[in-house]
């Protein structure tokens, strides 16, 4: 396979460096981002005792990493050099063992408030739409927006639909949504503009657990349809 281009580094603020990977939203690019993220975190751990570079936060997304540095003893060129060196060492992680996580989803009309619209837009019956959503295999590109929110790749293209024109003031926790070619799960009640096609009874983020997020970058995900009764039996959400 041809070697992909090195990521482009750009200072987007006085202490924040943005590394962009050219590929756009696709599985190959998110794997590159994941490998780069791991390499930088490894450099942080290994370099700790004898270099003064201190990373405050690293935020992966579809095709980028945002790296924010501590201000003490900050030197921009040293930061760039360190990041470049770490990125050059990034190795593809063995992914044969990427775990498959099954997420039970109730597609009942009570929860799937946008299912009729989405199904009509896709030219499918609601039943067929649910089958298509649940038979696909997804991959966690990254977690972002709010604690534990997974951005999933792998939505069947015919299920893609734009966001709502105006976000809802409150989306219920556990809601499974679609926005464009993305699908994801809202861990908390929050305003949101994704179209809601179901709800999981699982608690997607819990700060008291270790790890707190139910899903991790790189996980494979499948939605498993459950009935309203099954939902009621396992619901983990507060109120």
């Amino acid at each position, binding site marked *: 396979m041809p070697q992909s281009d090195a990521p482009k580094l*750009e*200072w*987007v*603020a*006085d*202490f*924040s460096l*943005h590394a*962009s990977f050219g590929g*756009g*939203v696709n599985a190959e690019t998110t794997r590159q981002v994941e490998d780069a*993220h791991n390499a930088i975190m490894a450099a942080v751990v290994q370099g700790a005792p004898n270099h003064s570079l201190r990373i*405050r*936060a*690293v*935020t*992966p*997304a*579809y*095709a*980028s*990493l*945002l790296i*924010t540095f501590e*201000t*003490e003893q*900050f030197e*921009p060129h040293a930061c760039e050099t360190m990041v470049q060196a770490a990125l050059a060492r990034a190795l593809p992680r063995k992914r044969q063992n990427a775990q498959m996580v099954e997420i039970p989803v109730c597609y009942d009309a009570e929860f799937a408030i946008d299912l009729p619209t989405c199904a009509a837009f896709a030219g499918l019956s609601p039943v067929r739409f649910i089958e298509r959503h649940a038979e696909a295999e997804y991959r966690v590109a*990254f*977690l*972002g*927006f*709010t*604690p*534990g*929110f997974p*951005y999933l790749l792998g939505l069947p293209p015919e299920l893609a639909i734009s966001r709502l024109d105006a976000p809802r003031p409150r989306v219920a926790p556990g809601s499974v949504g679609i926005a464009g070619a993305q699908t994801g799960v809202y*861990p*908390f009640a*929050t305003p949101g503009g994704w179209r809601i096609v179901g709800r999981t009874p699982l608690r997607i*983020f819990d*700060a*008291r657990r270790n*790890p*707190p*997020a139910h899903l991790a*970058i790189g996980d494979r995900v499948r939605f498993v349809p459950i009935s309203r009764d099954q939902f009621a039996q396992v619901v983990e959400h*507060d109120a």
Partner: protein
Amino acid sequence: MPDAGIRVLLPGPQTTVQDLGRPGHTAIGVPAGGAADARALIIGNRLLGNADDAAGIEMTLIGAEFELLTDAVVSLTGAEFNADVRRSSGESGHAARLDPIVMHCGDRVRIARLTSGARAYLCVRGGVAVLPVLGSRSTCLAGAFGGFEGRSLRSGDILPIGQDAFAPPRQAGAALQSAFAHSHRSSAIRVTRGPHVAAIGEPAYQALLSVELTVSSRSNRMGVRLENADISTAPDGRLVTQGMFHGAIQLPPGGEPIILGVDHPTTGGYPIIAGVIHADLHRIGQLRPGAPVRLMEVALDAARAIARDEDHKLHEQCPPVQCTHSDRKPQTT
């Protein structure tokens, strides 16, 4: 003793426990959080002999009232406000900003409506000792964890007081007093050019820098919205979702810029037109609805030099408390 703490009498609209946040968890979508005006919290802590990252109580726009259920030393920092102490003995008097206040069991402190700025802090010697979650005592409102039960404080809540103090309380010097007196009066916020100016258009960026903006009432710890930007050329496209940073000024399609605050979503898809410089980040937390804002551009290198200078200045005006591991033993009050 579970009851020997600070009791909330009147909580105000949004009063939360905050320290310096948990920046290392953005990869799982957890905002860094922490005090919206971190500088004010640090100063309040240093004057009490606390470590910089001791947790305090952050109040918003309208103050709050507390009762001490034990003897304690507190400090009030942040916005300008009127505050008073009512002693259990019946006496009462004005409570000044900055200088440590010795409180006795049963004494009350009331922070009235904030007159300038948006956030006031009550720090306590020893720190607010709620349990740390993901490495911080800060309240994460989006995830409903951390702080006190993951939420804003309510009447009747009792906050535990810790014992981690490392030096005697000290008065604020004249230099700190005068630096602090006017810190929330200036409308100028310094920014560096954002990464998406080319996509948004240079005229829109110049327009943003040339007008007097107004802080919207639809502002909170996640972000501060700015009105009057009059940017008619706001792009209607979204970017591929990418990592966001504290101080990023996003430009959504409506043309109303949003300065991302301490609790900002970790990722977002609106273009970034500018970024508040590190040295001015604490001032985002003091922007109150209706306040004027002017954005002033500086170069990246200048922004970094200002950060160093401001750190140095704060170090001179209010030196950090030495709390090395060897003496990280509680000092009794």
